[in-house]
């Protein structure tokens, strides 16, 4: 396994607030890694640190094995597409693409033109005059057509409608399959990208709380529903992420059940169901203490 990004004991403080709090992880080569978490959890700060746009308070970052700060050798291999990117005054879409073609050594001009057509982006208008969705689409075009060895998308879809987002995921996946590269995608539209991810990082209040293969997280939590007393009896002493009840009926989300425990719940007459990655992340980052079934 080659690590494209290596982060060790990384902390970034703004005054008393630790935006990133002692995080350690690696981003594997040629994988699509999801960086998930709530707004303000520290995702953007983390990506800015990785790409040398912020100074760490403490800890180590290696990008392609090197320190990223003002290091053109590694930053030229990296494409960082962020939400609400600002551009110089008077810049039009065509200027953005022109600059991108100079900056990124693997830039594919033909692909860029195809994507511009598909996303219906006007290139002859000033970036400041574009709608949010149109400006986001330009970012997405650059992110895909740059074919950078490391491409980081920080919630790149502001203002993109569902059709355009699906086109983005499909185009990214197809081009990634043909030209494998390392992709980090920060998003809170988790359900939309869950099946694209190979690895998942979840950050909550600056701390890395999940670092696992996506496949491992699938099925790592279970919903158990049924009669209140039965559900309560089953979930007692277990890792309950969420609980809800309606009259005599109750439902809980439980982490870490073995197949045998699931079978036992089903045999006891309880409904056993899957939990999506999005539900799992919500359960893990809700911020409230683990709940008991209300009795």
């Amino acid at each position, binding site marked *: 396994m080659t690590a494209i990004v290596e982060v060790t004991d990384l902390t970034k403080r703004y005054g008393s607030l630790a935006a990133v709090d002692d995080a350690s992880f690696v981003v594997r080569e040629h*994988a699509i890694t999801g960086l998930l978490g709530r707004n303000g959890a520290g995702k953007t700060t983390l990506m800015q640190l990785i790409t040398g746009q912020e100074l760490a308070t403490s800890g180590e970052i290696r990008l392609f094995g090197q320190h990223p700060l003002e290091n053109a050798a590694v930053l030229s291999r990296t494409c960082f597409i962020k939400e609400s990117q600002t551009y110089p005054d008077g810049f039009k879409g065509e200027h953005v693409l022109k600059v991108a073609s100079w900056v990124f050594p693997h830039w594919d001009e033909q692909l860029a033109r195809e994507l511009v057509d598909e996303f219906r982006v006007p290139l002859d208008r000033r970036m400041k005059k574009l709608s949010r969705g149109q400006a986001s689409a330009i970012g997405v075009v650059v992110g895909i057509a740059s074919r950078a060895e490391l491409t980081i998308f920080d919630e790149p879809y502001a203002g993109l409608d569902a059709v355009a987002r699906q086109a983005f*995921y499909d185009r990214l996946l197809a081009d990634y*399959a*043909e030209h494998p590269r390392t992709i980090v995608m920060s998003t809170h539209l988790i359900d939309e990208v869950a099946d694209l991810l190979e690895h998942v990082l979840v950050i909550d209040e600056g701390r890395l709380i999940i670092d696992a293969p996506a496949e491992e997280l699938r099925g790592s939590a279970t919903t158990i529903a049924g009669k209140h007393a039965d559900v309560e009896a089953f979930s007692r002493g277990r890792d309950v992420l969420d609980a809800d009840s309606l009259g005599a009926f109750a439902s809980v989300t439980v982490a870490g059940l073995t197949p045998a425990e699931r079978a036992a719940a089903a045999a006891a007459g309880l409904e056993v169901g899957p939990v999506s990655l999005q539900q799992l992340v919500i359960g893990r980052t809700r911020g409230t203490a683990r709940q008991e079934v209300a009795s």
Partner: protein
Amino acid sequence: MDDERPIFLQVAELIENQIVDGSMPEGAQVPSINELAAFHRINPATALKGVNRLVDAGLVHKQRGIGMFVSPGARARLLGQRREAFAEQYLRPLLAEAAKLSIGPAELAEMVRQEAGSAAGPAGVVGTAPHV
């Protein structure tokens, strides 16, 4: 893709279903990893894992530089496996539910006969297996 089971297993099963129902006969070319990834909107590594499962089981083989193909005898082997799994996947849940309703084996057998008689469509129609 459902949320419960690993995606690579579901990819493998979808191809197995097509081998069993004859829509992907022996010798037929299996979609490429990238085609599978694009169609199912999944990570190519996941699609590869699913196909490798079929390769390891000898149901599909790779021809270098050309693609992947359904192996000779794949359908017969899958049918054999499914027959073996039939009791566990279908009969046991059926019997468990029947027991809850106080339907004994004899009555159940009669119900099966009647249902088969009333549903006397073309013989040998292969249904899609429900998830267990």
